[in-house]
């Protein structure tokens, strides 16, 4: 294995949809909730794909599907070209591991740290108890925890320490892909950068591939090589990090970028101009799902769903960029009059 990125997709989502049925009230009619709507995404070996979007846009559902915790309603997930679902969850577990958002909830409070970290080895019957013990000690070193924490319990540790334990558990089986589901959002700001640096170092050392889910664009810029922006179950823009942060296309991405808080004095709280709140995913807006909040919405945005338009770095789903569209100028968008 080389540490360089290759274009061979190690993980691939093909037209994946996940629909939940939501029943409103005891006699209510069940309604479909499209958590993920026809998403295709590929993850190349060695890269870090950032997945950003507001709460409720389907990021975590996507993570659950990738981990095999949920089955997609439609479409397929492939690992190294093999469709998962057909493969055993146990074999999948050796290749893909998660790091969850909340280290206060992701560690079983009744188990010692040693038990928590060695669980994957015991489940997969890797080695005897001596070699498992050694593996736990090694991984504790790697994630920067002293060995004496082995006998302690999660309630005795701080958030950052717990997240290191969660990372150790995810890495002890040497997976290829790690799904990081907002791994720093539950942590103190002072600890966040430590965990991010640790993740970055580990990626280089073990040649890991990350899917990094976050709503914090600053974090994504720091870590990711490519970014996918998700809105109401769709990937509305996919681009390299540089491309996204320099010449972002989709109005939603621009709004997200504008919403990043800066410590600069006198700047105040940014105004995203997104106006109304996040739409109800049970009854998504017609046409382009983003049009009610879009500052550049045109008349046909309300009726025609946009197609994915290829860009040099990925794709974008917006009528502004569709060349078959009269309104298209082709040039990067400049906000007018706002």
């Amino acid at each position, binding site marked *: 294995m080389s540490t360089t990125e290759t274009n061979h997709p190690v993980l691939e989502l093909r037209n994946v949809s996940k629909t939940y049925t939501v029943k409103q009230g005891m006699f209510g009619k069940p309604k479909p909730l499209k958590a993920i709507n026809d998403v295709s995404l590929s993850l190349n070996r060695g890269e870090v794909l950032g997945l950003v979007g507001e709460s409720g846009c389907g990021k975590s559902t996507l993570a659950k599907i990738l981990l095999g915790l949920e089955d997609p309603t439609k479409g397929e997930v492939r690992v190294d070209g093999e469709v998962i679902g057909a493969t055993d969850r146990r074999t999948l577990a050796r290749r893909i591991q998660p790091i969850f958002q909340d280290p206060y909830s992701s560690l079983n409070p009744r188990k010692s740290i040693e038990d928590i970290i060695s669980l994957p080895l015991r489940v997969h019957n890797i080695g005897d108890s001596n070699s498992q013990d050694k593996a736990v000690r090694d991984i504790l070193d790697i994630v*920067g925890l002293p060995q004496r924490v082995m006998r302690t319990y999660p309630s005795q540790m701080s958030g950052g320490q717990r997240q290191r334990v969660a990372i150790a558990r995810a890495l002890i089986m040497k997976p290829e892909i790690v799904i990081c589901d907002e791994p720093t959002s539950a942590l103190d700001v002072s600890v966040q950068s430590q965990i991010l640096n640790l993740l970055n170092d580990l990626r280089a050392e073990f040649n890991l591939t990350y899917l990094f889910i976050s709503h914090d664009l600053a974090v994504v810029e720091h870590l990711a090589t490519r970014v996918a922006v998700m809105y109401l179950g769709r990937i509305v823009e996919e681009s390299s990090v540089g491309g996204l942060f320099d010449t972002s296309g989709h109005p939603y991405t621009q709004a997200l970028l504008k919403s990043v808080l800066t410590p600069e004095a006198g700047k105040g709280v940014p105004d995203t101009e997104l106006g109304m709140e996040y739409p109800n995913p049970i009854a998504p807006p017609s046409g382009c799902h983003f049009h009610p909040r879009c500052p550049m919405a045109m008349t046909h945005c309300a009726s025609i769903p946009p197609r994915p338009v290829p860009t040099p770095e990925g794709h974008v789903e917006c009528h502004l960029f569709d060349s078959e569209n009269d309104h298209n100028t082709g040039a990067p968008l400049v906000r007018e009059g706002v």
Partner: protein
Amino acid sequence: MSDATTNMTPDPMLEAIVGPTPGQMLRKRIFGHQGLMIGVVVLGILVLVAIFAPLLAPHDPYAQSLMARMKPPVFLGGTWEHPLGTDHLGRDYLSRLIYGARVSLLIGLVAATISGVIGTAMGVAAGYFGGKVDAVVTYLINVRLAMPVVLVALAVVAILGGSLQVVIVVLGLLLWDRFAVVMRSSTLQVRGREYVAAAKAVGCSTPRVLMSEIMPNIANNLIVVMTLEMAHAILLEAALSFLGLGVQPPTPSWGLMVSEGKNMMLFEPWMVLIPGAVLFVLVLAINLMGDGLRDVTAPENRS
């Protein structure tokens, strides 16, 4: 060890892993809880009495002596030959009380265990799997709640005949509702925690997830319900025996003793009061223990 560790800025927080283990904290809370300690001590004494009944009882609890009928207890002018007097057949009251503890505790323990197994299995399955399983279990709980326990127990015992075994099984099959309700809701709570998702992502089988991730985290609720249901079963046995449909004479049972004493209640009230008081103390001790266990184990759930 690796580049990762050397590149990392040393974290002063990492050196300070402070605080007692959960076990130590639990022990501290247990010994600091008065109600719990009183309950445990009283219950412990009663359990020891039941175990060592043959050594402690001054007389054979079945030996009748028509010459020594209804002797009053010591504090009402009786003799130390029969410290708590004798019943209407001249049997030693203290010995019968001591042996009666065996019946009450046995019924409480076995009936609560049977219903605990049934209720926990149903509740955990409903909470974990949800959907149709949950619908079926909820329906069964509702059906069970619609049945008056005493009435059903009376009917079954009347048909099958009263005996210790029948009473235990009937109560065991009737008292699972609270287990099912409590276990279902606590499983629902735990199921969504991320460590369950992590265990699944690691490749744990469903039984393993249930046994090693879910069960340890809902066991405290199980213990609390178990104590309450034990008290419940003991009281129901006493009620059934009082009505003549529980444990059959001459087996010494506290409910039966109250029942046998009730004819004499106006003349010799101690015949009812003594077994009644012991029953009261036992149930109080168990409830104190259950309450205390709930107080003691709850804080850990919050952290």
